[in-house]
């Protein structure tokens, strides 16, 4: 074994993050680590990469005891971690990012030519055909990720840890990444692959290690890997698959005509969302879906017409949208959807605060009652209402976002990637809640890059490609092939 972890235990005040966890890894194999959010995957990886130190347990690397006191210790041993949130520097070019801190020099100066040449070689290896002098800010998320991997490869790498590497990637980009992982494996790199995407595990993993509530939840060898087995291991019960309801959809609630977003001013979008339906919107990353809903919600400028409930309105700001009954749960929960420094209560009441006042002063009792009701209705798991929202899991954070709009009786609820980074159990719960909200007559418009989600949850599916609405599929027409065809341009 290249790497052996045994009895790893880590306690945080009030929380057992890891309890007696074992893990081993051989050179040239891909081990997938799966588990719900909060299962301890990230903590385990942080211990391995020197960000945290274990309270108990031991680690062995190449037969010797491994002491990782800091991230640089981990690097010295050839252990590299690629985080979910990318850490590259946008203001520098690719070559500078790859060799940051280890620049080639000519006397006191940076040897730019050698830097570029070396970078080019590594970029070829990871399959990124971009000049090393490109500024990082110009790259897509997938490309930035490849740069991070290139940086890892520029050092000697024996263990590569990938934390949710594909959560923002398109299908094609994901396949590229998986190919790269396989290539690295064939060169003897040991890979720990953390993901929520079970398809990818099936495609790529030699073994699977499950974690649940900070403990080992089981192992699967290559031949045992199946979706059902993995799901069972993660949550300890079977998930009911969302049944597709019969055709729904009453009157048109939201109507866009001749609509052009600022990002794609030449593409005209005409779209209707009906009462009681969930309109899925599929497309590859960069298809302009988020830009479209940002414009509808009054964040960005637009041209064209918006009708809500048959009435033409002009939406210049989120206040206008909210006043018209149109709400958005944005893609970036932590950056836009929530104020992470504030409590569950304050986040829940924020848009409704004006109505919870007496003579301009907040009525704290009513605010508390209001938040309590919303939290109970959405089944948000939180220690109490004053808990900082940043300590909640992604699924519970999303429930708070949905809950605060739900309490305001939305006519149209737009959800952008509602389950990104959320564990399987919470996903199912959120789908059920969306369906429930729709059944009360709200029109739901759901953007999603998760194919399974789009197919399972939507009543109709609209598909975009590079700013253009390439097609709308009725429920009977929905299939993975049909969506992919439209998402890649449609023919």
């Amino acid at each position: 074994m290249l790497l052996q972890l045994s009895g790893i235990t880590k306690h945080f005040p009030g929380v057992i993050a890891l309890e007696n966890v074992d893990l081993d890894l051989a050179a040239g194999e891909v081990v997938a680590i799966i588990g719900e959010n909060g299962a301890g995957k990230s903590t385990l990886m942080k211990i391995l990469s020197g960000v945290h130190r274990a309270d108990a347990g031991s680690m062995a690397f190449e037969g010797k005891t491994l002491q990782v006191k800091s991230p640089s210790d981990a690097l010295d041993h050839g252990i590299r971690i690629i985080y979910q949130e990318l850490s590259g520097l946008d203001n520098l070019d690719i070559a500078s990012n790859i060799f940051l801190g280890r620049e080639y020099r000519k006397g006191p100066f940076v040897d730019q030519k050698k830097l570029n040449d070396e970078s080019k070689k590594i970029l070829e290896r990871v399959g990124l055909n971009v000049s090393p002098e490109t500024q990082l800010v110009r790259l897509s998320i997938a490309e930035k990720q490849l740069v991070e991997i290139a940086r890892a490869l520029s050092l000697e790498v024996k263990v590569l840890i990938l934390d949710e590497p594909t959560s923002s990637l398109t299908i094609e980009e994901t396949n590229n990444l998986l190919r790269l992982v396989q290539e690295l494996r064939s060169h003897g790199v040991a890979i720990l692959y953390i993901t929520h995407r079970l398809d990818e595990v099936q495609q790529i993993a030699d073994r699977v290690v499950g974690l649940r509530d900070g403990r080992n939840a089981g192992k699967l060898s290559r031949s045992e890997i199946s979706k059902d087995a993995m799901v069972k291991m993660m949550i300890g019960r079977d998930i009911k698959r969302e049944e597709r309801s019969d055709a729904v959809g009453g009157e048109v609630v939201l109507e866009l005509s001749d609509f052009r977003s600022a990002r794609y001013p030449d593409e005209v979008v005409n779209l209707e969302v009906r009462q009681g339906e969930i309109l899925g919107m599929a497309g590859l990353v960069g298809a302009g879906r988020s830009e479209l809903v940002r414009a509808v919600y009054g964040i960005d400028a637009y041209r064209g017409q918006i009708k809500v409930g048959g009435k033409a309105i002009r939406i210049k700001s989120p206040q206008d949208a909210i006043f018209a009954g149109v709400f958005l749960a944005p893609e970036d929960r932590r950056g836009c959807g929530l104020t992470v420094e504030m409590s569950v209560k304050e986040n829940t009441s924020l848009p409704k605060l004006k109505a919870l006042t007496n003579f301009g002063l907040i009525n704290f009792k009513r605010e508390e009652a209001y938040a309590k009701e919303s939290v109970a209705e959405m089944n948000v798991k939180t220690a109490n209402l004053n808990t900082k929202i940043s300590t909640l899991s992604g699924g519970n954070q999303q429930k708070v976002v949905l809950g605060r709009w739900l309490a305001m009786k939305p006519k149209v609820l737009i959800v952008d990637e509602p389950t990104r980074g959320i564990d399987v159990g919470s996903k199912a719960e959120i789908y059920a809640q969306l369906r429930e909200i729709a059944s009360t007559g709200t029109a739901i418009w759901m953007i999603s890059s998760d194919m399974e989600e789009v197919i399972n949850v939507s009543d109709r599916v609209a598909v975009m490609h590079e700013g253009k609405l390439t097609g709308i599929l009725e429920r009977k027409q929905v299939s993975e092939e049909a969506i992919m065809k439209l998402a890649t341009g449609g023919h």
Partner: protein
Amino acid sequence: MKQRGKELGIFVIILILLTFSFIRNRTVLSPENLINTSRLIGIYGIMSLGMSFVIITGGIDLSVGSVIALLGVLLSIFMVDKHMGPGLSMLIVVAMGGLLGLANGLLVTRLKMQPFVVTLCGLLLYRGLARFVSNDETKGFGDSNGISGVKALATGNSFFSIPNPLILLVVMSVIFFLVLHKSTYGRYLFASGYNEESARYAGINSRKVITLAYVVCGVMTAISAILFAFYTNSISPSTHGNFFELYAIAAAVLGGCSLRGGEGSVIGVVLGITLLLVIRNLVTLLQIPSSLEYAVMGVVIFIGVLADTVFRKKGTTVRKSTT
């Protein structure tokens, strides 16, 4: 909880300083000294309250000192040279303070200029204007029409010899406390200060919220300017109000405001400015060379913020690791 602890901490430091210096020099707690120090606390405290709103938005206002000079000079010109009534003159000055704040706020929120740069330009511009409109001559109020009545706002005392500026500060603090900690505007201010984008998504007009904070700061600065002008009765346009913005910023930071925005409390700010002025007072009374005045204050602010950072860092490590 943490905020309460910090406020208590500053309060204890003030008590310790006073006790310690009382042993060395009994005049520290003499009525004259207390009255004089608390008068200054009132004058400085009012502008610090305004500054704290701007700092909570994540911004800063470096122009406060220069605005105090400009408005002081103008107040004198209105009352002495133009023979305008004191009420009208003060009203115009307060309105001008609000307008200057509005300009800062609009430049920051509409044109997305950086508050530091906008108000740094203001610092230079208003100081220059103050010197220009006064021909660089020191201004005062002499015995202009109605001056004796309004001057008492700054120099007079009321019930049990409490200086009027302190009373004004207490009243303002109560209002600010209600607005910041109990009203929707206060909540919106914190939300916009933490993360303007997410406040916007929640349907808050964060531009308006932030702009209003600058207006409030401008109005409070103008009130301080009036009090300070009456208090000194000698406004030398090149030095009047110099460094005042730094007192206000230091008070806000000592009192728990984060320059990153989103944090702060009214009690903290009031205690912060009190601590600063007590220290300044002690430098004089304990016969520490007055050339060291700024140095002593610098060290105290530094220690206060350092202690807070160390304390806070421990808090965040715990918080981060549990997510």
